[in-house]
């Protein structure tokens, strides 16, 4: 038990000295149940949040709260969780996860990764698909509102690309870029970014 300290019980403790302390308590006692300790999730049902771009995290939490992000998983899991958060806590959560150390990439199918790398870096001009790297960064680290993709679960990335294609997420720029990606290309890109 030496590795334990005594934060006990109340996830929304009044004695939290700062907004970031409060955010960390919520993250540890509630979010971590699915998103893992410090945002490194185990199950591909739930995205990894460690090291995610802060602006993107804030935008998504607000989208869950306003229910403008409406794919099935958002409805089933996050709409309710977002109601627990006020603006101050949302800011704290975004900062907390953005400052956690990202997890290493996950090895995958080498052929898929190779095909995904080409799409990620060069796009698919024949289908009007721009290179992913132009917004998400050469190393898929993301930038501001463009999310970090490196090390993200491939199954989660696939579901999000499909959700954006079907306009369940309010993401008009991304929709325009990927609307003509086929399922094989989606799988390849997802496998590639997961491995980064």
């Amino acid at each position: 038990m030496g590795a334990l300290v005594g934060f006990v019980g109340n996830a929304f403790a009044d004695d939290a000295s700062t907004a970031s302390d409060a955010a960390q308590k919520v993250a540890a006692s509630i979010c971590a149940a699915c998103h893992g300790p410090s945002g490194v999730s185990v199950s591909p049902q739930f995205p990894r949040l460690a090291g995610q771009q802060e602006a993107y995290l804030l935008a998504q939490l607000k989208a869950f709260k306003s229910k403008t992000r409406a794919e099935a998983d958002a409805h089933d899991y996050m709409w309710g969780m977002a109601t627990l958060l006020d603006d101050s806590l949302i800011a704290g959560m975004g900062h907390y996860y953005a400052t956690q150390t990202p997890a290493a990439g996950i090895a995958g199918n080498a052929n898929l990764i190779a095909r995904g790398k080409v799409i990620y870096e060069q796009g698919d001009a024949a289908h009007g698909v721009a290179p992913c790297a132009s917004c998400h960064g050469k190393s898929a680290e993301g930038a501001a509102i463009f999310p970090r993709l490196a090390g993200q679960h491939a199954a989660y990335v696939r579901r999000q690309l499909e959700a954006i294609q079907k306009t369940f997420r309010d993401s008009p720029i991304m929709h325009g870029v990927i609307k003509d990606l086929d399922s094989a290309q989606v799988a390849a890109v997802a496998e590639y970014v997961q491995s980064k």
Partner: protein
Amino acid sequence: MRSMPSLPQFLLAVAASFIVLFAGGAQAVPSYARQTGQACVACHVSFPELTPYGRWFKLSGYTIGIRQDIPLAGMAIAGVTSIKNNDDGTGMPVTARNNLPAFNQASIFLAGKATDNIGGFVQYTFAQTYSTDGTGSGHSGIDNADLRWVGRMGSLDANEVKLLYGLTLHNNPTAQDVWNSTPAFGFPYTSSPTAIGPSAATQIEGALGQQVAGLGAYVFYDRTWYAELTGYRTADGVFSFLRHGQDTGSPGSVARLQGGNPYVRFAYNKEWGAQSMMVGAFAMRVKRYLDNTDPTSGTDRYTDRGLDAQYQYISDPHTVTAQARYIVERQDHRMSFAQGLTANTDDRLRSSQIKATYYFEHRYGVTLSRFAIAGSADALLYPSGAVTGSANGKPDSRGAIVELDYLPVQNVRLMAQYTRYSQFNGGRRGYDGLSSRSPSDNNTLLFDLWVAY
């Protein structure tokens, strides 16, 4: 006697149930979902089977989310039961309302968090029973209940809850458990209330449900190691609300236990990717009075030991889960034997079950299960008798269950369940000692509608 319910009959039952349930504008969201704002699938593969997050929610004392002013939920079950041979050998029916729609039960749940450290649920059920003479009667009483206090300790970097610990007060052994390989919330999740089942079951498989008070302490460390120690006693005195509605005044109606009866539970849990698994063990000792109305009647002693395991792969669109358990019960009939109620001073009973489920899009499910019960021959414990008796005094029964499920929405489940017996109460053809009845004559098809709101 081999006819199955017609489609119109089944549809009539479904329609009638919807009318009963939704008249009055009941809300179609159970109270935990209202508390967390999350959907049923966040916690359940299919009610009541729990996901990893559902297990965490339960072990957290049901405290995640926002406290509701009126934390009420409801559940109702109606169905059509069809037994293969509804003639007991003398021209009398074996089950009531065979091939006819039957309303089975309706429950109200008081379920939710009270504080960030206290939560629970109390289920109160109205159950409809039917007699083979065509009459029916209703009965209301408490069903499963689980009240918890929980505490948490964080890791050194404070990024996760490393140790979850708590107290639980409940009224059915293993109802507090979070893996669906233990009996109280184990498969089958819904059974026909009128079908015929094997005579023998171990104490931990429901024999004490809604009759005892269990006060337990548990720890869950690193989402890996689970340990629990619970003591059970008769639910009388201040605990009498935990058996509210039970007939406590008639001999043989409820269990009366002597003193505290210990239950221990250990489990190793692992989660990786979309998968999780658990291997565990549990044990319980029970001192049970021969006559619940007479505290001088002496006790028989039961020792149940069980091993269980669970595997889950939960993804979209595919979900696969499997559970297994094996229970050995040592029955010390010191008092029953002295009274001439058993043929042996000691008996053994073994019970095993395996089950595997596949769901597509959390909507279409198929489950296969096999079960077996075997034990000592005891002609006084398992006497002969029409349909439910045993010719050779043995409890041995075995069979399989096939179940198809369809959830048009997450809180409505339509189910077709077929139970097949290859051995029943110790034998095959003529097993009951009074007729030529075969185990397969008890095969049962159940169409069922389950709704929670």
